[in-house]
């Protein structure tokens, strides 16, 4: 079956001085119907720009410089802007990290949801209000008849994120992109929101692109995982392949740096710092921090090596003939 979303060789460039910066570099992945893909990476890895590129909302001076994004059989890159507006919301819903910044402070909760319904011609007036209450109930907001008239500041962070979910789901999109949906929340609230995401996925028959830096969130929620570093996907595979059999030294380093071993023992830090995209090292961008690097690593960008049908990594060490 055709995947719901197929991103191929996506490339997003920011035209800044003195030289353009490639924020998303040759990124390819798929999301199948009903699947959750976790996109994990540190700040500046390009994971959020990838998400904004998919729905064509990259801000100036950024621009999509190449690649295709096939959603439900249509190439989003070739759509007119009015067609694209229809895809946003009705085809692909969005949940952002900071619900307070995404919600209009002078608009009531119900009005936010009604607006989404009206824009996409689903319903308006009294019907939209009823639909909004129904959606608030679906995202487990208690007393939705009253909450629908609240303003964003009257809600807690977790409740606001539930409202964001209700807005994203208003037009029943088959795909939701959630960008760090729990990062600003306390851990007990995070647990509730993650559970809600899993429930919504089942009840609304959703597919999910979940963007996060938190490997714990990924382990709990994702079916498959793509690890980004300096604009590229360096490894992708099923959640078990990534957590139990990571192949890229960066993925291994990330997993090892999570506290969890013996108390008081030294953590296995990845030395050095995340590179500046404006001055990437030659060859593999991770090579200066990699303890396993060989000569070729600082010369050529590694191609993706497939370990099996679902698990691939961009690392020279995996290429037959190279040795550590």
């Amino acid at each position: 079956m055709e995947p719901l979303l197929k991103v191929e060789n996506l490339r997003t460039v920011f035209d800044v001085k003195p030289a353009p910066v490639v924020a998303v570099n040759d990124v390819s992945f798929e999301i199948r119907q009903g699947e959750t893909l976790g996109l994990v990476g540190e700040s500046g890895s390009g994971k959020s720009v990838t998400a904004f590129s998919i729905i064509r909302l990259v801000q100036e001076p950024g621009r999509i410089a190449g690649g295709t994004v096939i959603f439900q059989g249509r190439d989003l890159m070739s759509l007119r802007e009015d067609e694209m507006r229809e895809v946003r919301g009705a085809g692909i819903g969005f949940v952002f990290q900071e619900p307070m910044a995404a919600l209009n402070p002078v608009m009531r909760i119900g009005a936010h949801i009604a607006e989404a319904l009206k824009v996409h011609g689903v319903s308006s007036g009294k019907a939209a209000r009823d639909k909004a209450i129904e959606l608030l109930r679906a995202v487990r907001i208690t007393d939705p008849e009253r909450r629908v008239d609240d303003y964003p500041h009257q809600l807690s962070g977790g409740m606001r994120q539930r409202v964001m979910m209700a807005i994203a789901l208003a037009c029943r999109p088959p795909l939701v992109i959630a960008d760090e949906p729990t990062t600003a929340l306390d851990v007990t609230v995070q647990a509730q929101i993650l559970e809600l995401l899993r429930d919504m996925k089942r009840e609304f028959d959703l597919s999910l692109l979940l963007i996060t830096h938190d490997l714990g969130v990924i382990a709990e929620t994702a079916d498959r995982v793509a690890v980004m570093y300096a604009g590229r996907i360096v490894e992708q595979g099923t959640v078990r392949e990534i957590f139990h059999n990571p192949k890229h030294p960066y993925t291994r380093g990330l997993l090892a740096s999570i506290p969890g071993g013996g108390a008081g023992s030294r953590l296995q830090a990845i030395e050095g710092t995340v590179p500046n995209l404006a001055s990437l090292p030659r060859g593999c961008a991770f090579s200066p921090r990699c303890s396993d690097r060989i000569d070729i690593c600082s010369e050529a960008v590694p191609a993706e090596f497939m370990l099996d049908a679902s698990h691939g990594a961009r690392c020279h060490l995996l290429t037959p003939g190279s040795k550590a």
Partner: protein
Amino acid sequence: MALVEVRNLVKHFTRGGGLFSAKSVVRAVDQVSFSVDEGETFALVGESGSGKSTTGRCMLRLVEPTSGEVLFRGENVLGFSSARMRAARRDMQMVFQDPYSSLNPRMRAGTIVEEPLIIHAIGTRTERKDRVADLFRLVGLDPAHLDRYPHEFSGGQRQRIGLARALALNPSFIIADEPVSALDVSIQAQVINLLMDLQQQLGLTYLFIAHDLRLVRHIADRVAVMYLGKIVEMGPTAELFGNPQHAYTRALLSAVPATDPDAPRARIELDATLVDREAPLRQISDGHFAAVQ
């Protein structure tokens, strides 16, 4: 031996009291007591609004507590005059969460680290410069970068600058308020390792304020869990994580996502109505206390 002892610390904030609203009192820190032993890492954990940061700030009198005592080497610092307090702060320092806003962007890194020495009139100019270079090396920074501005450093390096500044006066006690939560995962581990190395090298005592329970479990000797301004449970780290007694501690521990996709998930929800806010801390086992009936 206890280096620091906090007794019945209380901080109330008044809210409202304007033209249209009645005054209300927020009990941000409510009768908090604990002690930190010399050379120990003691962690205060809790979610936002639990009062953990306010507790730390009250201890250094960055905010004035409403009542209570903070004994440092047996003396109540809350009774100190401002001159005496300034002198006492040489021995008690703070490292802040945000390495971006806690460093003056217009000051060079070397000057930021030297400033405490200038304020406390320590050493000659040359001696201070040598000391700053030593501090740079101590926290893993290159003294060749003394003249750079904060924005020229990465987040992890900035946190090292903050640490060098805190260490400038040779303190014995450091309050670290979420020192790595603004950093990327791969950088967090570097800073945590540095904190542990410095503790061994310099014999430091830490009060570590954090919300990341994985991290706390890794570095703390003892842990106190705060909920709505009160300590609801306190004990040796392994004991508290292995045998949590308070409903809130159990809910909090169960909410931490496991970094193993095959780990069983057993969330425990907190029924806030069942938490008795007035329950006193009761001893469960040696050193382990919980506010349960």
